[in-house]
């Protein structure tokens, strides 16, 4: 299993909001292992999808150059079961961004059906962070590969509406140390 819980962004507006989709397939092991004999998408992984979509949106605010981690999932609600063949659409909106972290409101829909809603808090562990508290999660080239796979630079726009450019971010090996 690979820890990718969004398939693709369909919208990514820096500092504002993003939309990403995740197709749920019978080919995925986790759907069978959650409740044996009744394949459904585990809600913990729906939360992870919302966190990945929101985390990348927040990470962009820090130039994709620093470690941003999910600190807290507040007020998460799940309203239904997501089955194979359905597509989850995650919508994340930045509520507030600070030096120390950010708050993001997230929803997950299947078509028109609201499946989940949550308030997420991300902590920014910048350069001043003690290395013993944790290393970087990603090598820049791995992060770049992920951003490319999920289409951030295809659909992403800056706050002024101009397209995001990969070259605007320190995603080359060695640039961020």
């Amino acid at each position: 299993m690979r820890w990718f819980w969004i398939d693709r962004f369909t919208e990514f507006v820096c500092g504002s909001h993003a939309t990403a989709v995740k197709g749920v397939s019978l080919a995925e092991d986790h759907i069978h292992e959650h409740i044996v004999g009744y394949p459904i998408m585990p809600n913990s992984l729906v939360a992870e999808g919302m966190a990945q979509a929101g985390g990348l949106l927040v990470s962009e605010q820090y130039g994709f150059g620093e470690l941003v981690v999910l600190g807290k999932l507040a007020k998460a609600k799940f309203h239904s079961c997501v089955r194979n063949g359905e597509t989850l659409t995650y919508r994340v909106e930045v509520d507030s961004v600070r030096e120390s972290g950010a708050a993001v409101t997230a929803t997950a829909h299947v078509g028109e059906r609201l499946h989940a809603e949550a308030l997420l808090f991300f902590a920014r562990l910048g350069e001043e962070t003690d290395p013993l508290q944790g290393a970087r999660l990603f090598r820049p080239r791995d992060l770049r590969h992920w951003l490319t796979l999920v289409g951030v630079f295809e659909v992403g726009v800056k706050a002024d509406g101009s397209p995001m450019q990969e070259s605007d971010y320190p995603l080359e090996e060695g640039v961020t140390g």
Partner: protein
Amino acid sequence: MPSEDEIFSKVQEALVDALGVDDDEVTPEATLQGDLDAESIDFLDIVFRLEKAFDIKIERGELFPEDILTDTAFVQDGKVNEAGIAKLKERMPFADLSKFESEPIVQNLGQQLTVKDMCNFVAYKLAA
């Protein structure tokens, strides 16, 4: 300017939502970390909620001046020195630091911050 009761009521609501505690646990004397189990990420949550509730802007280090507590000019052997205490009083006029002064171990400051201190902080911000 809202009354003391109004401030307490909104602070209480913010803490109930942010920390998942019951209304009656959020008393003025309750300490945020000791009694209400607030963790560091919760402070970000609390700050965002207070900003919305009172339409104020809270900068980093305003509620909890971590920069002083990590400055070697103010901290020696894990304890805040006299200059540090003076600096804390200047930065935290809303907090009752008398208990902290008697044993100024860095970790104690966060442990001793109460709901009442939080309400005083909001009143201080609203009056500014």
